[in-house]
């Protein structure tokens, strides 16, 4: 859809609240923006058959994943009147309570950001080859599947 080279969406380890705050700060010079919408995926300490998830270890088929993120990005810019869009996803270990996905969209108008953000997050969940190993406190694991 575009000959621009895909960016690398992946970050090693969790995405910090400082990084998110700073990303918001950097948008304050863009004075055509009226509405931001941010989605954050956080690792849940799910209880599964009496064992508690302590972390998720993320891996990805990286080149294809970055290509898919790129296609999602281009498609969202085509569909919605967005001023900017940023996507970051963790690789490696992310502990329960930490953030593994950060999607940030901005537009002059609010209706646009609601539609765009949900579209992007659902596409990421469905189309991007990222894999998650849920590590329990006793160091056993199971593989996460998106619902």
């Amino acid at each position, binding site marked *: 859809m575009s000959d621009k080279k895909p960016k690398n969406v992946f970050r090693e380890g969790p995405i910090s609240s400082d990084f998110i705050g700073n990303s918001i700060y950097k948008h304050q010079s863009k004075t055509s923006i009226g509405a931001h919408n941010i989605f954050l*995926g956080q690792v849940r300490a799910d209880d599964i058959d009496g064992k508690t998830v302590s972390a998720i270890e*993320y*891996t*990805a*088929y990286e*080149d*294809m*994943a970055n*290509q898919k993120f790129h296609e999602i990005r281009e498609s969202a810019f085509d569909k919605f009147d967005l001023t900017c869009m940023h996507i970051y*996803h963790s690789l490696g270990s992310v502990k329960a309570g930490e953030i*593994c*996905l950060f999607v940030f969209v901005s537009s002059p108008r609010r209706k646009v950001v609601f539609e765009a953000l949900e579209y992007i*997050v659902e596409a*990421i*969940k*469905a*189309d*991007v*080859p*990222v*894999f*998650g*190993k849920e590590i329990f406190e006793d160091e056993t694991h199971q*593989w*996460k*599947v*998106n619902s």
Partner: protein
Amino acid sequence: MHIRIKYLGQIVEVTGKEEETLEVAGGQVSDLLDVLNSKYNQLKNKDFQIAQNQELVSLETELTGFEIALLPPFAGG
């Protein structure tokens, strides 16, 4: 034809490796899968999709070489 095969996520637990290169005669994706199923007998119990050169393909797709990846269910976000 040389094909680099990548195993992702829980598929690595079946193959014991993240990638390998195989020499195949060509044919369809299903022909390659037959080879893999006989090499890794737990593979048939696993749920996965197949990508060729980073695009999802069906079993009937012709093998074109370069890179095949076995992708278990996605879990991003």
